[in-house]
C-alpha cells in the first residue's frame, strides 16, 4: 500500500449564503485549496475526485453532481463521483480518495464535500435531515435525528449519571472555540445559563444542543506521499483511515451509549497509523448533538465508556487542555454543512498541523498527531482519520 499525504486544503466560510449555490460554494473551496498548495499545482494532474453530498443542493442535482461541479472548475474530464453517507459523506469522500491513492492507481486525488441547506424552507430542510435515518420505523415514530440522539442521551444519563449540565458544557466549549475561527458560522460565546435554557427540541435537548443548518464546501488534495515534497515542505501525512457501518435503526443496536461504527473505524485507523488514543494531540469530532461529542470520547478511546463527562469537568478537551477537541468550534458552532463536514475537519487539521490556524490565533502548539471523526446520521456509518505533521 502506498502512503498518503495531504498537500492542499480549502473551505468556504460556513454559514448562510443566499448569493451562493452548490457550484459557487464548491468553486470557492476548490480555488482556496489550489492557493494553499505551496509550490502550485498543474490541475490537470488530478486523477480522480470524490465529492460528498447528501442532498446535492436540496435535490436540485441528485444525479451526476460530481461531473457538474468538476466541469465548473475546469476539470470536465476527470474521473469524478459523488459519495453519499448522510453526514459522513465528506468523510467517506476522504476515505475513498485515500484508498485511491493508497492503491497506487492515482498520484493526486481530490476529496471534497458540499451542502446547500439554507435555500429551502425549514420544513423541507427537516425533510432532508430526516430521510437518512431509519425511515420505516424511527421516522414513523415521529422522530428525526434530534429525537434519536436524545434517546441516546437519556439512556446515557440513566446508565452513567450524566447530567444535563454536561451536555451544555460541550456547547459552551465549542462556541468559545469558534470565536477565533474566521470560517465558523457562529462566532459568539454562550454562557452555561444560556445553554441550559434554550427552546426545547427533544428532551433533554434544547436548541443549544443541536448543530445548525449550514451552507458550505470543503476541498482537500491528497497525493502519494512519495511526491508530496514536490508540492510543499509541510505536507500532512494521512497515517490511518478507517470506516465502518452499523444497523441504521437505533432499536436494532445492542447499545445506545456507544457507536460501534466509530469504534470499528477508530480501531482500523489506529492500527494502520501505529498509534493509540494517548498519542493524539488534538481532535475534531462529530458533535452534531452535544451527546455525540460525549459518545465520541468513549468510542475513540479518550475516556472509558461512561466516564467521558469527567473530561469536560476537568477542562481536558478545551483549547488549552491536554487534548483539545473541536478547536474549530465543531459542528455545533463552526457549522454542519452535511456533506462538507468530514472534509472541513481535514481542512482544520491541515491548518493546525502546519501552524497556520491564525487570525486570531487558535493554534495548538507542538502537535504531532491529530484525529478527525465523522459520523453518518445516528451512527449508521462513521469514518476516522489519523494525521501526522510532515515538516519534522
Amino acid at each position, binding site marked *: 500500500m502506498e502512503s498518503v499525504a495531504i498537500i492542499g486544503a480549502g473551505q468556504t466560510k460556513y454559514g448562510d449564503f443566499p448569493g451562493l449555490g452548490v457550484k459557487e460554494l464548491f468553486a470557492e473551496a476548490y480555488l482556496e485549496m489550489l492557493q494553499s498548495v505551496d509550490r502550485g499545482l498543474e490541475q490537470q494532474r488530478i486523477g480522480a475526485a470524490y465529492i460528498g453530498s447528501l442532498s446535492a443542493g436540496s435535490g436540485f442535482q441528485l444525479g451526476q453532481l460530481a461531473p457538474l461541479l468538476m466541469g465548473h472548475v475546469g476539470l470536465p474530464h476527470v474521473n469524478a463521483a459523488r459519495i453519499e453517507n448522510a453526514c459522513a459523506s465528506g468523510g467517506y469522500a476522504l476515505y475513498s480518495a485515500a484508498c485511491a491513492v493508497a492503491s497506487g492507481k492515482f498520484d493526486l486525488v481530490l476529496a471534497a464535500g458540499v451542502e446547500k441547506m439554507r435555500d429551502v424552507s425549514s*420544513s*423541507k430542510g*427537516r*425533510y432532508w435531515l*430526516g*430521510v437518512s435515518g431509519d*425511515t*420505516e*420505523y*424511527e*421516522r*414513523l*415514530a*415521529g*422522530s*428525526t435525528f*434530534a*429525537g434519536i440522539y*436524545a*434517546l*441516546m442521551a*437519556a*439512556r446515557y444519563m*440513566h446508565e452513567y449519571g450524566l447530567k444535563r449540565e454536561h451536555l451544555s458544557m460541550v456547547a459552551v466549549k465549542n462556541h468559545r472555540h469558534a470565536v477565533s475561527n474566521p470560517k465558523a458560522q457562529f462566532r459568539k460565546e454562550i454562557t452555561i445559563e444560556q445553554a441550559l435554557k434554550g*427552546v*426545547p*427540541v*427533544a*428532551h*433533554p*435537548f434544547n*436548541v443549544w444542543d443541536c448543530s445548525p443548518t449550514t451552507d458550505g464546501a470543503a476541498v482537500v488534495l491528497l497525493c502519494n506521499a512519495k511526491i508530496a515534497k514536490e508540492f510543499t515542505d509541510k505536507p500532512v501525512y494521512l497515517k490511518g483511515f478507517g470506516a465502518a457501518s452499523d*444497523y441504521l*435503526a*437505533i*432499536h*436494532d443496536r445492542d447499545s*445506545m451509549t456507544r457507536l460501534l461504527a466509530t469504534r470499528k473505524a477508530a480501531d482500523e485507523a489506529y492500527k494502520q497509523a501505529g498509534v493509540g488514543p494517548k498519542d493524539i494531540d488534538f481532535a475534531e469530532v462529530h458533535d452534531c448533538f452535544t451527546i455525540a461529542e460525549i459518545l465520541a470520547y468513549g468510542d475513540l478511546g479518550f475516556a472509558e465508556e461512561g466516564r467521558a463527562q469527567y473530561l469536560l469537568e476537568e477542562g481536558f478537551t478545551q483549547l488549552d487542555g491536554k487534548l483539545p477537541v473541536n478547536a474549530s468550534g465543531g459542528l455545533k458552532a463552526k457549522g454542519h454543512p452535511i456533506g462538507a463536514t468530514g472534509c472541513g475537519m481535514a481542512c482544520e487539521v491541515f491548518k493546525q498541523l502546519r501552524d497556520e490556524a491564525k487570525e486570531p490565533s487558535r493554534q495548538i502548539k507542538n502537535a504531532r498527531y491529530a484525529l478527525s471523526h465523522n459520523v453518518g446520521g445516528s451512527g449508521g456509518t462513521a469514518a476516522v482519520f489519523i494525521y501526522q505533521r510532515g515538516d519534522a
Partner: protein
Amino acid sequence: MGAHISIPMYQRAVPQRYRLVGQRCGACGKINFPPKAVCKYCYQGTSFEDVQLSGRGTVYSYTVIAGGGAPPEFAAEARCKGSYPVIIVELAEGPRVIAQMVNPPEEGIAIGMPVKAVFRKIYEEEGVIRYGFKFSPA
C-alpha cells in the same frame, strides 16, 4: 414535505404495524422484529416462523419531541399537543422497537416502566390515514 412511504410500501408492513408479527429464527430460535432476511442474532438463519408478539415490554429510553424537533408530517401533531413522547421499548420477547407513547404518566416517563402496545393513528399521507402501534403505560 414528509418522508414518503407509499401506500403499497405501508401495506407490505401491515403484519408488523397492525399486529406486531415477529419472526423466530429457525437456526438460533431468537425473535427478530422488524423482519430481516438473515437473522440479526446468529447471522446464519434464513428461515423464520411468524410469531405474534405480546406487545408488552418496558421503556428502555425516552424523549419528548417538541415542535422544533418534529418531522414535517408530525409538525401539526406537535403544534396541537405541544409535544409528544417517543420511546424505545424492550419487548418481553427480546427485540426493541421505537414508537410514540400515549397517555404518559403525569409525573413523567421513567426508564424501566412497563408499557403495552395500542393501535392508533400514526399520520396521514396521500389522503390515507396510516395506522400502527404506539405504547401506553401498562
